[in-house]
């Protein structure tokens, strides 16, 4: 396999991740601001962002820490929010599992919502790529996003001040996730899974630790798989 096609896969990854800068930058800043205002020194804010690299769970942990919750509750709820990444890990394994262990470990570090979803769209559209090309695309997606996540957390922590809510930045995340998922609604089975996910996530929202979302997701995957099996 020629190095030029690997290189072009890397660049395609970089380009396809660029729109998500609009999401990552404000989200990272918000975490920096919120964590600083909660009283964390900047080295602990950065520790969170560099070691955990998962915004939603970082906000969850922070919220429980502000409430002085027991440490076990903080850990359990923040990790529960991240359990969806186990499903991402399983879903990319057929595409990237051939890599040696140390590369799989490094890919795991940058496995976030955006890199996973961009990569899986790409892998499904271009099924004839080599593992090297797929890896290059995945790394390309992470190259702008992960450093920006870390850098703008620092900016938010350094600025401290509030970002006014009327800018509507809170909605950057939902719009980005919907924009990623809508093109993936290719078949009746995908649509059935998505509708199940929405209905059950809203209905099970009362379950603590985000476990309602996890249950909704698992049932939605089963619905998608079952519809696919019956249509085949």
């Amino acid at each position, binding site marked *: 396999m020629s190095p030029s096609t690997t290189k072009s896969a890397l660049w395609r990854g970089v380009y396809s991740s660029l729109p998500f800068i609009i999401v990552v930058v404000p989200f990272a800043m918000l975490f920096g601001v919120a964590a600083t205002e909660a*009283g964390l020194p900047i080295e602990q804010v950065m520790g969170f962002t560099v070691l955990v690299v998962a915004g939603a769970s970082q906000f969850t942990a922070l919220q429980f820490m502000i409430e002085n919750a027991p440490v076990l509750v903080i850990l359990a709820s*923040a990790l529960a929010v991240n359990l969806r990444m186990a*499903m991402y890990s399983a879903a990319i394994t057929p595409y990237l599992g051939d890599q040696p262990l140390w590369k799989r470990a490094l890919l795991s570090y940058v496995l976030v919502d955006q890199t*996973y979803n961009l990569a899986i*769209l790409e892998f499904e559209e271009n099924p004839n790529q080599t593992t090297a090309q797929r890896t290059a695309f995945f790394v390309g997606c992470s190259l702008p996003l992960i450093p920006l996540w870390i850098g703008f957390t620092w900016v938010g922590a350094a600025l401290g001040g509030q970002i006014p809510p009327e800018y509507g930045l809170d*909605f950057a995340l939902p*719009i980005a996730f*919907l924009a990623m998922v809508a093109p993936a609604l290719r078949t009746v089975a995908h649509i059935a899974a998505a509708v199940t996910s929405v209905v059950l*996530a809203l209905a099970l929202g009362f379950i603590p630790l985000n476990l309602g979302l996890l249950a909704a997701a698992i049932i939605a995957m089963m619905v998608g798989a079952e519809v*696919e099996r019956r249509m085949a």
Partner: protein
Amino acid sequence: MTYSDTTIWWIIAILGVGTFLIRFSFIGLIGSRPMPPWVLRHLRYTSVAILPGLVAPLVAFPAATGGSPDPARLLAAAVTVGIGYWTKGVVRAMLGGAITLFAVQYMLG
């Protein structure tokens, strides 16, 4: 917040290691071993099973409006999904959603 510095560092370290192990779980342990077809069939629906559910409460009950449904956000979400579904363009869908959000917010003052 009343935790000691050491406790907070422990929280950060355990969350960091735990999150990494969650990410590493399947790709780390299974690697290149083949998975049965029924497992693969379920995994094909991972994205469409999680993201809509993750976003649904944020769209229906946005924190920025104190949790009450907001026409600008509902419409922006609908436009994003519509453009993404029919044009298959991620960037187009994001821009369409953002423009809708700001336009409706502006019109409603």
